[in-house]
């Protein structure tokens, strides 16, 4: 869009005062000016019709961010990011309209096929729309059904959730419709000052999900199902907030096994979970962002802050993640075990192939009495990738009876990759029981040959062995998803051997 580009260029040339005047016309454009300034933050806030308190919150984060420096302790290596050379807001672009599955890249269709995603869902995920006067009735039927289904299914879900009293909406809507809840909880788990990327996110977050489950309610469905069908376009700075009130339960699934490409290289999301007394949140992620090409060019930088607060007694938060994509992953879904007898869990499968770099793990911070946590991490490195588990387990002076069990296994495929384990363990009272187990193994030629002698191809053999390796974690995923995830794992490792 040259007109927009022109506007952007013009805005760049004018000084701040003139910029304020120019604001009116700028708001018609769908891209914020390049670079990050208070004006960019205001632009985003205004675009989203946010109340003043939200704008002030963002600005405070922005000012804080200016004083911060990028973390360098992770075992990842990438060229320095010029934060003034990025766009921080772009209106969600409507997907390129295709009228039949024939127009979709056959490579992409092949991946869907391998994942076992039904064609009807492919049509939805890829945004196939019916063309008026379409000649081939068979083709047309797929498209019409797809649109029909996605609308009707979504509506049914909404009605059911409403009946249960569950609030589930984009966070941009929640800011306007439930300001009291958002104000109370936003930033209460990951404060705006938390870390470089979280602070950046607080200033410029685009959109994300908001979930509130009222006391005693068991959310009537996996909030995953909804996402499987509805394509999201939340942009690069996603912000999610989930609150489970006393005695409630919710299971939420983020992401998609389908391959996801995005023009934005930097992704810095923040996810906050709050579990009150006796509440439970199960949060599952399948991440399959573009990992870069075979030479290691391109790919997403995924710098995410995810944290759950077991605020109430007997509360429970469980993270399950299957990470196969992104060029660089920097991600530590954590639990603050504040309530007495609260429990945190972290189950992770992190697969790296090609030139991918993963530095991922968790933090279990035991503050309450008799709190317990469990960490099961499975790292698989193939190609020329580097895969690091980094975990922190701490027990506060008052966290008597704290218990943790950590099992951290790494599997190497080939001899050009690396697996690293960096555990930090800190117990400040003598009644804490922390266990840590770690193994590193190589996928052995003998095991592969055994499988191949029984009729499996090389790739099938690797897939089978790896799926066996990650079985404990796969079992934690919602049923329907586990099967897809299993296939995704095999696909991610294609071409990793021989």
């Amino acid at each position: 869009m040259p007109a927009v580009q022109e506007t952007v260029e013009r805005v760049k040339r004018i000084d701040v005062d003139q910029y304020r005047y120019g604001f009116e016309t700028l708001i018609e454009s769908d891209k914020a000016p390049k670079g990050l300034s208070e004006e960019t933050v205001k632009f985003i806030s205004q675009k989203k019709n946010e109340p003043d308190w939200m704008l002030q919150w963002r600005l405070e984060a922005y000012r804080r961010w200016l004083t911060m420096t990028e973390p360098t302790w992770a075992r990842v290596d990438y060229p320095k990011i010029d934060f003034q050379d990025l766009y921080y807001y772009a209106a969600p672009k409507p997907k390129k309209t295709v009228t039949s599955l024939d127009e979709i890249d056959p490579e992409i269709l092949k991946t869907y096929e391998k994942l076992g995603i039904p064609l009807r869902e492919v049509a939805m995920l890829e945004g196939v729309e019916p063309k008026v006067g379409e000649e081939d009735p068979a083709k047309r039927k797929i498209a019409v059904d797809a649109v029909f289904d996605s609308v009707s299914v979504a509506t049914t879900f909404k009605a059911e959730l409403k009946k249960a009293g569950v609030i589930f909406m984009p966070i941009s809507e929640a800011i306007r419709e439930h300001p009291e809840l958002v104000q109370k909880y936003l930033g209460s788990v990951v404060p705006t000052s938390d870390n470089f990327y979280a602070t950046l996110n607080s200033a410029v977050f685009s959109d994300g999900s908001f979930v509130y489950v009222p006391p005693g309610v068991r959310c009537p469905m996996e909030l995953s199902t909804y996402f499987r069908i509805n394509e999201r376009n939340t942009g690069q700075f996603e912000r999610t907030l989930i609150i489970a009130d006393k005695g409630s339960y919710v299971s939420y699934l983020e992401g998609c096994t389908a391959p996801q490409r995005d023009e934005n290289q930097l992704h810095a999301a923040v996810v906050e979970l709050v579990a009150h007394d006796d509440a439970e949140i199960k949060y599952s992620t399948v991440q399959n962002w573009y990992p870069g090409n075979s030479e290691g060019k391109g790919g997403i930088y995924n710098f995410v802050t995810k944290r759950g607060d077991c605020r109430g007694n007997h509360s429970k938060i469980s993270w399950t993640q299957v990470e196969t994509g992104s060029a660089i992953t920097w991600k530590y879904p954590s639990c603050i075990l504040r309530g007495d007898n609260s429990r945190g869990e972290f189950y992770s499968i992190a697969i790296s192939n090609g030139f991918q770099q993963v530095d991922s793990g968790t933090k279990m911070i035991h503050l309450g009495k008799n709190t317990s946590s469990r960490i099961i991490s499975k790292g698989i490195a193939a190609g020329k990738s580097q895969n690091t588990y980094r975990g922190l387990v701490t027990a506060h002076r008052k966290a008597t009876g704290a218990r943790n069990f950590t099992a951290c296994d790494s599997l190497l495929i080939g001899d050009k990759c690396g697996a690293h384990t960096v555990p930090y363990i800190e117990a400040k009272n003598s009644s804490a029981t922390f266990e840590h187990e770690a193994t590193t193994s190589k996928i052995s030629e003998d095991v592969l040959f055994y499988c191949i002698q029984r009729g499996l191809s090389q790739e099938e053999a690797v897939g089978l062995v790896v799926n066996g390796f990650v079985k404990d974690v796969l079992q934690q995923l919602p049923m329907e998803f586990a099967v897809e995830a299993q296939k995704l794992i095999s696909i991610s490792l294609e071409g990793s051997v021989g």
Partner: protein
Amino acid sequence: MHHLNKLDTKMALLEVKDLKVRVEEREILHGLTLTVNEGEIHAIMGPNGSGKSTLSHVIAGKPGYEVTDGQILFKGEDLLEMEPNERAAKGVFLAFQYPVEIPGVATMNFLRTALNAQRKARGEDEYSTPDFLKKVREVSKSLNIPQDMLKRGVNVGFSGGEKKRNEVLQMALFEPSLCILDEMDSGLDIDALRIAADGVNALRSPKRSMVVITHYQRLLNYIVPDVVHVMSKGRVVKSGGKELALELEASGYAQFEDAA
């Protein structure tokens, strides 16, 4: 020689012709020739380092071996041109000396994945779950394998005897036309050996050939061969009937060291 002539009238299943094989620049097999006809059981005996296991690995297609000369025909087709999994689908089965453990992969799942992969490669329909379960139950029952064992990870925590029985179970399930048993007796006590050998004997059929590789004559008391070959220094140096094994037991391999 009379004995061998009689066998020549049968169809050759496996023909190894003047096979030369190297491992990392060192020649292990120096022109080995061996013909196994349909329905026959051949024993290959020889001292350590004579190349017995190398032969079994090359037939199955294990990577790391370089064939510099010679030919292996299986049902008249060039076996060396096929990928190891294609060979499996064609009917080549290697019972390993040391079956590997595959943690997290339930034996049942492994059996099914492998069987269906072979069937698919042959253009046959994959087994449905009920059909497959029925077949596994039948076979495992005849081998005295408890259902519980099939739920465990492949060979994980199995005793030596259980591991070998699992190999025989797969042999029974996949119905190969050529079974190569590599040192099946290693690590087995006499009772475990008897159970495994009974399983193998039950699979004897006019359509199935076996190559039994062993260091000791003991195994051949249980699996009685039609032909015995003695290998030394990468060649077959003597072939004969089952009585050759007994002869070896009495006099040892030393007499063949010079012959090679």
